[in-house]
């Protein structure tokens, strides 16, 4: 009976210690929200930079996107946590979580924004410019509102990925949900209930968002 990873007394132990998991969930949600804001901001800025007439800005977009898309998040986070202190820069774990994951996801969002803008026929921009709009006005009033419909589902999708990616904090003692599950189950070996409940909590966080993506895709007139 005791060999069963899901034995009843292990579940009971989990419900006794539920606070630990609640704390972890809170940290995960907080990190995810800040990271999402960072990612959105960077995504829009660099996304627009990617279609800008100025070549240097376009190069900046490429460097940012290619660097962060092509290195593992784990390495970026480990670097921020273990290597930066040797350069006398000690970022708190929360900042590493929200900034690190935010900057990483921002690269993906920049690509989404860039391709969304490119999907709008060039004639739209030209029509705007010929009517006396400046480049920025044309972007702001003509292109972005149209691109929004294409962009939003993918942005929300990246948001789901972002939530799941916050679990890398477990590697740097981040106090998030995954860390608490590792810590608690490592101590008492009740890994069965620990990971089932943790998986379920992540699922509950992400499921409404994926549902929202579906809804956005449905309501968007432009279908892929």
């Amino acid at each position, binding site marked *: 009976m005791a*060999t069963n990873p899901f034995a009843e*007394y292990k579940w009971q132990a989990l419900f006794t210690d539920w606070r630990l998991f609640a704390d972890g969930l809170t940290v995960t949600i907080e990190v995810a929200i800040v990271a999402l804001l960072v990612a959105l901001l960077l995504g829009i800025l660099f996304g627009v930079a990617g279609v800008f007439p100025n070549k240097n800005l376009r190069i900046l977009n490429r460097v940012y996107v290619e660097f962060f898309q092509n290195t593992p998040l784990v390495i970026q986070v480990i670097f921020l946590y*273990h290597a930066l202190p040797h350069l006398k820069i000690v970022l708190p774990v929360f900042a590493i979580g929200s900034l690190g994951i935010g900057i990483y996801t921002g690269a993906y969002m920049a690509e989404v924004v860039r391709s969304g803008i490119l999907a709008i026929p060039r004639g739209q921009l030209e029509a705007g410019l010929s009517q006396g709009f400046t480049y920025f006005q044309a972007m702001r009033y003509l292109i972005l509102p149209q691109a929004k419909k294409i962009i939003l589902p993918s942005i929300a999708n990246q948001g789901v990925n972002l939530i799941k990616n916050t679990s890398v904090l477990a590697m740097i003692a981040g106090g998030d949900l995954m860390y608490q599950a*590792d810590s608690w189950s490592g101590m*008492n070996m*009740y890994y*069965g209930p620990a990971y089932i409940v943790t998986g379920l909590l992540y699922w509950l966080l992400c499921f409404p968002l994926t*549902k929202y993506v579906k809804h956005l895709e449905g309501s968007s007139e432009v279908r892929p």
Partner: protein
Amino acid sequence: MNLSRKKMLTLGLALITAFGLFAAGCGGDTKKDAAQKPAATNDGIQKIKDRGVLKVGCKVDVPKFGFKDPKTNKIEGFEIDLAKAIAKKILGDENKIDLTGVVAKTRGPLLDSGEIDLCIATFTITDERKQTYNMTTPYYEDPVGFLVKKDSGIKSIKDLNGKNIAVPQGATTRKGVQDAADKAGVKVTFSEFPTYSECKTALSAGRADAYAMDTSNLLGYIDDSTEILPDKIAPQFYGAATKKDNKALFDLVEKTFEDMKKSGEMDKLLTKWNLKK
């Protein structure tokens, strides 16, 4: 739209139910298995004999206990020799062992799944763990020590007030340190890391002010800039572990260790690995 929303909801509920059934199903099956099997037969040992090899979980990163030498690629140590003694007892050949490197987090699941028969991996005996696994009488006792930077000014447990301490995940160290800190009236915080080397990295990076772990383990990580505090706490007792239902193997291991202690063989091994106090 309404229909699809309903569908999604149904799907979601179905998933949750499936999750629950899976968990519950696992529970039911194992219980039945345990009930049908007569308690202590030789099944566990016969299986190993049929297989012709003893599968042992060991450490690969703890010098003197279980350490994979990067030059020879061989795993060696006191605990490996213990495993060999068990293999000799069951199979008549000490080389018929199949070693699997484990960390604190993986040894439980590996035992449960039957991936390893026996775990001899600086596994500290606790009441909680005894409830889930068979654990032998201790074959080694090791107190917890603190590795600190020489220039940190930390000289005793009292100096740890308000400090952050790195401890490995899945080890009993955290509780031991917490108890000692409470007793000394100091407040400490903890950062847990998956591996020992990450604990040491955190100490070097200044993320943690001390790295607390079994002293024998710390010896492998000491360098020019770090030292081990003279204060030692919470003696950790190492035992070998088997799955709860493999009582036969457990009894044999227990008996073998006992014989080795009596015959002086255990002492010889301790001396061989320079672990004698």
